């Protein structure tokens, strides 16, 4: 740490004094600066997010009636027990059914959500004719709110008059049949969702040092090898970020399957975890609010486990940027 280098045995009281002053100044500088830079953000984070989060978490330990304040009493871990452990409770069954659907959706969606935009960004980065047009078009679906685009898709896949439906033949019922509905949901999620990652990768790819690419191609690297060994490591932070946020985002999948699955007869087949939670809140059964909070926290717990696993798995491979720095240094000196 910064202070270690200052630990010298003082040979006189003046030096001692100077040493202490130095330490104090540096201390203030370090932590004062930290306060200045981090302070504003942390203020908003703690006051407007952490505090309500804490309150919301407390609610999960209560039977909490959102309409009738006299109908609130402490339940301890009962809500969690019902959700996580009591197999004959409808809360258990719907939660785990939702989790199952969610995890399957995430396993399919997340890889595509990272690979597809990356490939598209790489293609656009080649700067073919009209690349500005492509840049705009590929981002365009993300601009629309999904409530609007879902209605468009519903219309195009209606089996009576939607023309996309006619293309695929009359036997496939996209809106009624759960397995086709899931395909529709996945296609819709990718269509409307990859714009953001596309843009991030586009910006990231631009930041890749062109000298490195030139250098490696002189050394005889083909384009694919160049991509894997030079480009990818350079954009590693963005890859991790997109992977991470896509996972969290799709673990919270709700709006898309709520809208596209409106006509499925057995909602259990398209229900994700957040769908189950939102569904509980929709009617006039106001006393389930504590259970709603508990379910959301349980979901959050599982998302956290998955995220930790991801972070640990992606932390180890630091090789890329290391090699790159060594290479640069060596080049400059040589």
């Amino acid at each position, binding site marked *: 740490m910064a202070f270690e280098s200052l630990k010298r045995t003082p040979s006189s009281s003046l030096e001692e004094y100077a040493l202490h002053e130095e330490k104090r100044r540096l201390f203030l500088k370090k932590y004062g600066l930290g306060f200045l830079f981090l302070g504003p953000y942390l203020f908003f984070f703690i006051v407007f*997010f952490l505090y309500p989060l804490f309150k919301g978490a407390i609610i999960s330990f209560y039977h909490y009636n959102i309409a009738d304040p006299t109908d609130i009493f402490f339940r301890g871990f009962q809500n969690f027990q019902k959700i996580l452990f009591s197999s004959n409770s409808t809360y258990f069954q719907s939660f785990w059914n939702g989790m199952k659907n969610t995890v399957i959706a995430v396993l399919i969606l997340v890889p595509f959500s990272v690979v597809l935009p990356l490939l598209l960004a790489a293609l656009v980065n080649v*700067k073919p004719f009209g690349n500005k047009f492509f840049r*705009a078009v590929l981002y365009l679906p993300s601009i629309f709110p999904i409530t609007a685009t879902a209605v468009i898709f519903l219309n195009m896949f209606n089996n009576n008059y939607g023309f996309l439906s006619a293309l695929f033949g009359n036997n496939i019922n996209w809106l009624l049949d759960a397995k086709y509905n899931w395909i529709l949901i996945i296609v819709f999620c990718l269509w409307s969702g990859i714009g953001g990652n596309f843009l991030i990768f586009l910006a990231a790819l631009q930041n890749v040092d062109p000298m490195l690419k030139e250098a490696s191609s002189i050394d005889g690297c083909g384009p694919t090898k160049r991509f894997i060994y030079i480009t990818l490591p350079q954009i590693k932070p963005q890859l991790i970020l997109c992977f991470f946020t896509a996972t969290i985002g799709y673990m919270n999948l709700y709006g898309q399957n709520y809208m596209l699955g409106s006509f499925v007869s057995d909602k259990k087949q398209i229900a994700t975890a957040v769908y189950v939670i939102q569904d509980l809140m929709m009617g006039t059964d106001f006393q389930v609010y504590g259970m709603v*909070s508990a379910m959301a926290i349980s979901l959050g717990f599982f998302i956290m486990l998955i995220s930790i696993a991801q972070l640990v798995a992606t932390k180890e491979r630091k090789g890329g940027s290391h090699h790159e720095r060594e290479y640069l240094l060596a080049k400059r000196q040589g």
Partner: protein
Amino acid sequence: MNGNTFWRKDRAKILSFTILSIVSFFVLFPIIWAFVNSLRDAEDIFYYPGSFFPTSPSKWTFQNYIDVFQDGTYPVGRWVLNSLIVSLVSTLLYLLIASLAAYAFVFLKLRFANKLFYFLIATMTIPGIVVMVPQFTQMVSLGLNKNLWGLILPGLGGVYGLFLIRSFFLSIPFDLVESARMDGASDIRIFTHIVVPLGKSILLVQGLFGFLGAWNDLQWAQLVVGQSSADMWTLAVGLAKVTEGNQTYSKLGLQLACTIIAMLPILILYCLVQDRIVEGVAMTGIKR
């Protein structure tokens, strides 16, 4: 460099053009459909839903767009203004505080930095439903649901943007900062003169994302300002009210017009900004 590389470059460009054109077609198709049908007589859509284009030239009309304004019953202009204020203020404020915080995480050697950052990420994993009602209560008790601040302030604690900006600051070489420090520059100066210019592209990206998020936000906005008078609504809330009803898929023309109206400002913003986003930064290494 020889002819081989050039040929390869051209081939790459042709290949990428082809693939991108095909992909763009599929991506654009629903949007073109939405645009065309928003200019189509609502009854025509209702009675001939299977037709892509209006069934006859006379069925092209701006009536759907006119209906949104409903002869002045709805203050649509006010909604646009509210959305603009909320989106701009929250985006700019957030960019400022999040980039400062990201700088702190990356370039100030703070002992607790990593642990704090992991804590922040951990809170990202909790679904938003947990905070929704307590945040609403907080807004009410602070009196912030009487004005647009209730829409701006809660978003300033968001972690995603911070995560994004930090990831880009990580790729700025630390040596640049170190050498500037050794030259005697204060951290503020390094921030404004080195880091922000270098990280311009990601700040624009986050700016766009933040603006978009605030512009399209429906659930939170409805909760906070939805029950107030129509003057307080944002564009997303207002347009949702316009199309609310029994069977919204039968009101397709109106809904599509609303969608296009909501989307246009962002499209314009994006077109203006996209060049700078991908301009990128030529990493020239350390100047000696």
